[in-house]
């Protein structure tokens, strides 16, 4: 049996040759070699026979129908373990799809607004040497957010919501330093005008969490 040298075609080459997966140049080179090499001719024929046997395997008829039952209990999207979704019909499915898209958009907006509020609070606090509890550092640890969040709860002069740092800076100068730290966690979600930093941090954290959650959901359905 002849030793396989560089000139002989490997099984992978022969296989690709048969499937016409080679470049035209390679195809031509191999074709030329095959014309003069009995060994490779034999190998090729051998491979062809194996493929022919595989191709001759019949398609087996399905033993039964695999159609799905047309019941609303079927969930067309979303994983089963992580989300407990109510049974869906068409309109609900579309609504959920829109909701999911909006959720992502809202999370992004929340995060951006959070940053804006933080900057507003930061700039407004600068002339006052950072009397507010959550102003000086641009970092946003979540407990700091919680602390300043509590300060938002203290009733104070209403300030108009503003997304412009400059506009917010002026009224912010009148903001009283937080004195009593009343913990009103449920109130945090209601946007009170003061404590831009608190709102900012809160929005940013919510936005980031929302985006993470949103992305994870998308991955789950893939």
């Amino acid at each position: 049996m002849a030793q396989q040298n560089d000139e002989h075609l490997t099984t992978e080459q022969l296989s690709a040759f048969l499937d016409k997966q080679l470049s035209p140049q390679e195809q031509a080179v191999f074709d030329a070699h095959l014309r003069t090499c009995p060994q490779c001719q034999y190998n090729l024929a051998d491979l062809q026979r194996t493929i022919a046997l595989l191709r001759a395997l019949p398609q087996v008829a399905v033993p039964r129908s695999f159609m799905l039952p047309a019941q609303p209990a079927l969930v067309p999207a979303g994983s089963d373990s992580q989300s407990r979704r109510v049974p869906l019909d068409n309109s609900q499915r579309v609504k959920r799809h829109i909701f999911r898209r909006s959720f992502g958009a809202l999370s992004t907006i929340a995060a951006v607004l959070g940053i804006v509020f933080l900057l507003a609070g930061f700039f407004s606090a600068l002339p006052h040497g950072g009397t507010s509890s959550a102003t000086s550092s641009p970092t946003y640890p979540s407990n700091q957010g919680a602390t300043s969040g509590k300060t938002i709860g203290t009733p104070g002069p209403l300030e108009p919501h503003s997304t412009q740092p400059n506009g917010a800076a002026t009224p912010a100068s009148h903001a009283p330093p937080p004195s009593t730290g009343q913990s009103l966690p449920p109130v945090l979600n209601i946007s009170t005008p003061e404590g831009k930093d608190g709102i900012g941090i809160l929005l940013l954290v919510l936005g980031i969490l929302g985006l993470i959650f949103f992305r994870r959901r998308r991955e789950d359905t893939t």
Partner: protein
Amino acid sequence: MAEQAREDEALLVARSQHGDVNAFNSLVLRYQQTTYNVILRMLGDPDLAADITQDAFLAAFRAISSFHQGSSFRAWLLRIASNLACDHWRRTNRHRVESLDLLTDEDEQPPANLLTSLAETNPELNPEESLLTSELQQLISRGLQELPLDQRIAVILCDVQGLSYEEIASTTETSLGTVRSRIARGRARLRSYLYKHRELLPRSYRLLTDRE
């Protein structure tokens, strides 16, 4: 696939993505035979293949929103199906030792003269309708199940189901080069397996006659 059929399919997929089970069932009818056959050839057991085929369609419907219109639905569906089949195989064959029949991925071939003497021309065998005996079918099936999973899928998709390299790459989420390599090695391994069990081959089928 004809343009019209492609458009019809895109519509069915879109409606499925909106929760239309009837539309999805049209897709099931269209692809259930292919899906079942792929899983059957991968696992060898008809009842098991039926169960996993059902699971595959359920999973596909649940995940239909993740399908990107414009790509091959068949490839996407078969990806789900083959993954489920692989999962099952790995779960139930964890302790299975890779066949020690000295089958390697290398170019192991039977000696040329021996095969030549085995090969027989059979004038009665009409190549156009070369029906394999059930024994031979079983032998090939067993040979397929001896292949490593990645080679098995590649050979089944290419030679048994006739998918293109591109679609196989999409189904297995690999490159064309990897597909090419796996198909070649799978075929070579199967050839060695058939040669090794050639005494089981009916005399007239020992290496089908080549027709040019």
